[in-house]
């Protein structure tokens, strides 16, 4: 939580000229002018692929539209399908600063937006008093107070960081875990792309950040928030895509091992487990097997490394009932 440079700070006293979300005029410029990346969804797919993120057509189109229409992208899907890592990949391809806001119940503006650095302010008061005592000059109370609420005493939290950086990608992770109060507050910040600090004035983003929200559906997110977003349900990848993802993420793993892991992971997803393994687990598993020196998947190795892919005792039991050999069998 360092302080952020204030180069891109635009302090606006008036409430005009704020680009409102979803009000696209005819003079619209895309979220990111970095050229070829946002030309077509296909170009974005290729750019993401070069960072090791292999998106399917739907996801790439959704992300591309989010950039072009300047809408937040609202992603849902099983755990481990790559919702969070998409934000990181988008930041990488657009050369943006990635800001992550992990939500939890009770999250409030002092943790999400900004906070004053009280200890430093107090020190500042004491230091000026001390200097005045030594120098014998009179301290002007008004000036002193003015100097207390300077930008350097403001600690930027994720939302403010995203507004102050240009360009930036803001990842609001697991929005469903925050409470209604926070949702209403977030809606306000997103639709204005600006915040008002009472003691300091209004801080407006030079260019609204690209916003990616993820949710695990533990509760219904308010419709007002969803209405402003583009919605996409992220699916598990196809077998071919998953092999490609494993190969891209773990170049050191043999092709044979990647295929074995992708095949078995797919079968595990069909087994009706408490927690079906996602792509993240498949990557962990392939990495673990590789660390164990595997070049292909043997039943004994699979049994030894099952903890990388199954996270519940009941799931492990169920898979052992099924006998790993059957799972490992070739198609």
């Amino acid at each position, binding site marked *: 939580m360092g302080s952020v440079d204030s180069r891109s700070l635009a302090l606006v006293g008036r409430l005009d000229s704020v680009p409102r979300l979803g009000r696209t005029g*005819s003079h619209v410029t895309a979220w990111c002018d970095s050229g070829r990346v946002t030309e077509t969804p296909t170009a974005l797919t290729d750019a993401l692929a070069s960072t090791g993120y292999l998106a399917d057509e739907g996801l790439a189109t959704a992300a591309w539209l989010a950039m072009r229409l300047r809408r937040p992208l609202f992603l849902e899907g099983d755990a481990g399908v790559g919702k969070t890592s998409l934000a990181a990949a988008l930041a990488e391809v657009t050369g943006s600063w990635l800001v992550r806001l992990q939500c939890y119940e009770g999250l409030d503006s*002092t943790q999400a937006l900004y906070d004053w650095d*009280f200890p430093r302010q107090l020190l500042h008061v004491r230091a000026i*008093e001390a200097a005045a005592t030594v120098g014998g000059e009179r301290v002007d109370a008004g000036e002193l107070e003015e100097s207390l609420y300077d930008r350097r005493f403001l600690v930027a939290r994720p939302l403010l960081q995203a507004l102050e950086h240009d360009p930036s990608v803001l990842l609001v992770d697991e929005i469903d875990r925050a409470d209604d109060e926070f949702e209403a507050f977030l809606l306000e910040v997103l639709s204005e792309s600006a915040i008002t600090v009472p003691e300091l004035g209004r801080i407006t983003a030079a260019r609204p950040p690209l916003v990616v929200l993820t949710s695990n559906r533990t509760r219904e997110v308010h*419709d007002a928030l969803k209405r402003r977003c583009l919605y996409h*349900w992220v699916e598990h990848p196809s077998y071919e895509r998953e092999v490609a993802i494993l190969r891209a993420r773990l170049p050191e793993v043999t092709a044979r091992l990647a295929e074995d892991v992708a095949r078995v992971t797919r079968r595990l997803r069909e087994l009706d487990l408490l927690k079906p393994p996602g792509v993240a687990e498949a990557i962990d598993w392939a990495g673990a097997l590789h660390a164990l020196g595997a070049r292909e998947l043997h039943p004994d190795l699979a049994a030894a490394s099952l903890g990388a892919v199954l996270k519940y005792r009941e799931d492990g039991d169920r898979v052992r009932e099924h006998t790993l050999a059957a799972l490992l069998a070739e198609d």
Partner: protein
Amino acid sequence: MTLGSPDRDATEVLLGFARVLRHAGVDASPERVQTMLEAVGELRVTSASDVYWAGRVTLCAEPDDLPTYDEAFATYFGADLAPGDSAIRQAAPRRETHLFGVDGDLADGDESEVDETTTASSVEVLRHRDVAHLSPAERAELRRLVALLQPFAPDRVSRRNRPSHRGRVDVPRTVRRLLRSGGEVGTLGRHTHRRKPRRLVLLVDVSGSMRPYSDALLRFAHVAVRLRPATTEVFTVGTRLTRITRELRQRDPDEALAAGSRAIPDWSGGTRLGEAFKAFLDRWGQRGTARQAVVAVFSDGWERGDADLLGEQMHRLSRLARRVVWVNPHKGKEGFAPLTAGMVAALPYVDELVAGHSLAALEQVVAALGRR
């Protein structure tokens, strides 16, 4: 670049599609449709899949919308409709409210027979009558009384704070006071945790054997949702799981129940509690809906499926939920013993078993839900 907006004909085709979606039950509001038009314009459509994705990311809002969307898309664009063709109307058959419970309902004009000045003693008699054996007039009276119940779960401690005279020191507030007073230590500001309503989840069995009680129980669920719309969830279980929370949020009980009944595909079918519970836990419960919640199951425990599966799922539920209350309408009857296979499998994981066959019993349910 120009802000591509699809030309007029294309726009009409897309608006027609949005209308079809609305009739099929997807909330394609004008605002969303506007976004879809923008998206299609941006994509400078080259293929059907562009239209498909542009529509899907803008018009859908949850996974349940996706199958509907796919079907509507195939029907509308696959059937080669000429632009401007009228939308396919899929008006759902409007069910009457008296579909629940016993047939021959308010609809037969018994309203006039209800004595508006119901005396206290007759209410007292009605309170203990079994819902299954009421005359239409008595049922109408019962509905009025059910609407007065206040079922809600006890509060829980929230992570948010509120100012208070006791509790932990609120450092930011204290320091702000210090700054105002130029660094002189005055009184300490304190704060303590706020309280928030705990989540309440109702799982209502709508299979054939529960038919006489469905109306009263769904009305009870409606009252609960109206009381705490943000923290109450209602699902019906039968042969499958259906979430009817949204439908029950409407103010008018009859409208809400009609909407709910339209959403339930498995009225009066068999019972597969184990499978339905598993679907609930997989899709909702484990992700958070049941975590630290008060869960009430309204069922007689007639399980046609595998009772072991039901036991396993109840065990899972009991590990997630704060309390599990089982409401069995037969419990209030003479000689009841919870011996159906489903009941026996579930009982080890139930914190409280209460009856739900009469108004008085429903009052006990309210008390059971409110216990800490």
